[in-house]
């Protein structure tokens, strides 16, 4: 009987995949930012402008390399494409207090959100970090990448240009 129900659920799920082919949009999860304000992630996309959502953690070296490299390019990217970068920390209680000191010390000008128990990461199907999503001005996820290696910023830039051309 349980096997039958599992099977039934899979069939239903497949039906859904066929039936629902809309572009993936942002799920709404309530998170705090570093100023203590509550932000709904459903509102992260800026109308008409691209948003780059980067999942990271203070203990994740490639994540920090990614965001440190973007930081050097961010001003130019903003001028050319209007992109807003949102850095979503998945640090848990052990390291959450390190986020604000670290972010300010390395001079990131991003919006930083605290996803303390990974509610937003789960809703976005993030398996591991770094995981970066590019969201267009309509709020649809148009590109994603589950890794960071030096040079990836060039691909991000190309994708950003596609959105504003």
């Amino acid at each position: 009987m349980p096997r039958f129900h599992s099977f039934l659920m899979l069939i239903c799920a497949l039906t859904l995949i066929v039936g629902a082919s809309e572009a993936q949009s942002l799920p709404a999860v309530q998170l705090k930012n570093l100023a203590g304000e509550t932000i709904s992630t459903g509102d992260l996309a800026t109308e008409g402008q691209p948003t780059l959502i980067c999942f990271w953690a203070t203990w994740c070296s490639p994540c920090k390399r990614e965001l440190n490299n973007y930081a050097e390019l961010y001003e130019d990217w903003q001028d050319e494409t209007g992109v807003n970068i949102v850095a979503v920390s998945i640090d848990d209680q052990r390291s959450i207090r390190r986020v604000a000191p670290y972010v300010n010390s390395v001079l990131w000008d991003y919006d930083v959100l605290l996803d303390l128990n990974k509610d937003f990461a789960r809703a976005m199907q993030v398996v591991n970090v770094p995981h970066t999503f590019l969201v267009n001005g309509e709020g649809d996820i148009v590109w994603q990448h589950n890794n960071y290696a030096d040079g990836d910023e060039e691909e991000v830039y190309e994708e950003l240009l596609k959105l504003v051309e």
Partner: protein
Amino acid sequence: MKRIAILSIIALGLSGIAWSQGGDSEAGTVTGNVQMLWQSYSEDPAIGAMVPPEKTGFNAFGNLIYNQGGFSAGLRYESYLSAVLGFPGRFKGSGVGYRFARYADPDGKVDFTVGNFYEQFGSGIVLRAYEERALGIDNALDGVRLILRPVDGIEVKALYGRQRLDFDSRLINGPGTVRAVDGTVDLNYLLAEQGGNDWKTKVTLGASFVSKFQAGGTITKDSLLLTLPENVGAWSYRLDALRGGWSAGIEYAGKINDPNADNGYIYRNGEALLLNLGYTRRGLGVSLSAKTVDNMSFRSDRDVLLFDLPINYIPAITQQHTYNLAATLYPYATVISGESSASAEIFYTIPKGTKLGGKYGTKISANFAAANDLDTTNLAGVEGLVNGYERNSWGFGPTKFVRDFNVQVSRKESKKFKWKYSYYNFQFNTLATPVTTTFKGIVYADIHVLETQIKTRKRESLRTEFQALFTEQDKGDWATVVAEYTWSPHWFASVIDQYNFGNPDESARVHYLYAAVGRIDGPHRLSIGYGKRREGIFCIGGVCRAVPASNGFEVNFSSSF
């Protein structure tokens, strides 16, 4: 029957919505991810690698979530055929290990979930349900949760459920029931009409109450026949404040008598106090914290240990390290029976354009963490049997558990070259955190790590790590070399060699060589590796699990859509 009922509700809900929304412009979306890990095992007596009867291990997970407006429903299908080494070996078979249906109204005032869910109250000191899939840790609650935000600035959460304990072709929950309520008041939002949003100081208050029920019974201690409490309550109060670059937080937690396997079935109440203070401005960040946790192990089954059925979460005071030798040989884990601890950390960027800062600025950080046992006096006679000890202060006791001092300097020299140097000094009590079987006492270790990164050509770079650990104790000195070459955005190849060159036992001076290649294509990621994996401790986010030595292939695939 209950399980089938929930599955049916979700399945019917999903299919009903699928059909009713057919062709509708408000059609829902389906998102999901998959993750697979396959390992093969070969015998290798030099490192103690054993071959299980199946010769291979296979773990797989598939998540599917349907979203439509405020409604979402999903499930996770899991396979352990058989579980890879290092995972709980009792996880067996394939089936649905997590399923839920949730409605959150668009203005956020009402949010309810039936089925499985994760949750954290405050710092987690009285309740945290979470998952670290790579470690096989999952204490998801299975029941009902209601979140209400009746007015701006007030959030109330209430839940009833049982916790995930095991998996044998289906989810298996523990025997205890968890009942919990939490309230948070954000004063600035609540008092918005009085100008709260414009106040320079942001204040959040919170309180939680969590109760577990488990059928009782009696235990005997010497000639005493003691009754076990069936209902155990824990509570906490917290206050967080932000002003300018300053932040401060305090949380106090208590728990009534809860004799359990962690505390040796004593009837002493539990208590915890957590303090945090931070200051940050552009280019500088400072963080101080102190924590005393006394007898706060809280599980929905009083007789289990280690990773099973924790209701709360008590993170370690030390930093989560990332370099191989610093992270995996002597990782500290909170002593669950009780400890006093403190830490301090500073981050600073020497401005660019200065002599020390160089062209791009130089980043520096230093961190110190210390933990000791509690300052206690053991009780004698019957009082000792029943209550164990009394605590004299919130301060440090005489036994050192850990000292961890580390400093990092990183600098970009040019567009093509950057480096980072790290130094660590550990004093690590292996009696408090038993990470090794070859030494009992305090390990004194110095670790040096130099990481370099060279951009070899457009979109290609070579990253290397040279690590050395020096100690007179335990297995002696270690060296690790890592080389990783990346072709952005799709390919990587890496080699890691760990060498226990200073082991007092010369036959144990082996190389653990492991190589991997991988491809990343958007959200899809495949890696294939081969080599020796050392017996050791594997940690994620402050939780660690012992992993046995192994030798063989490993294939990892993950994807999301």
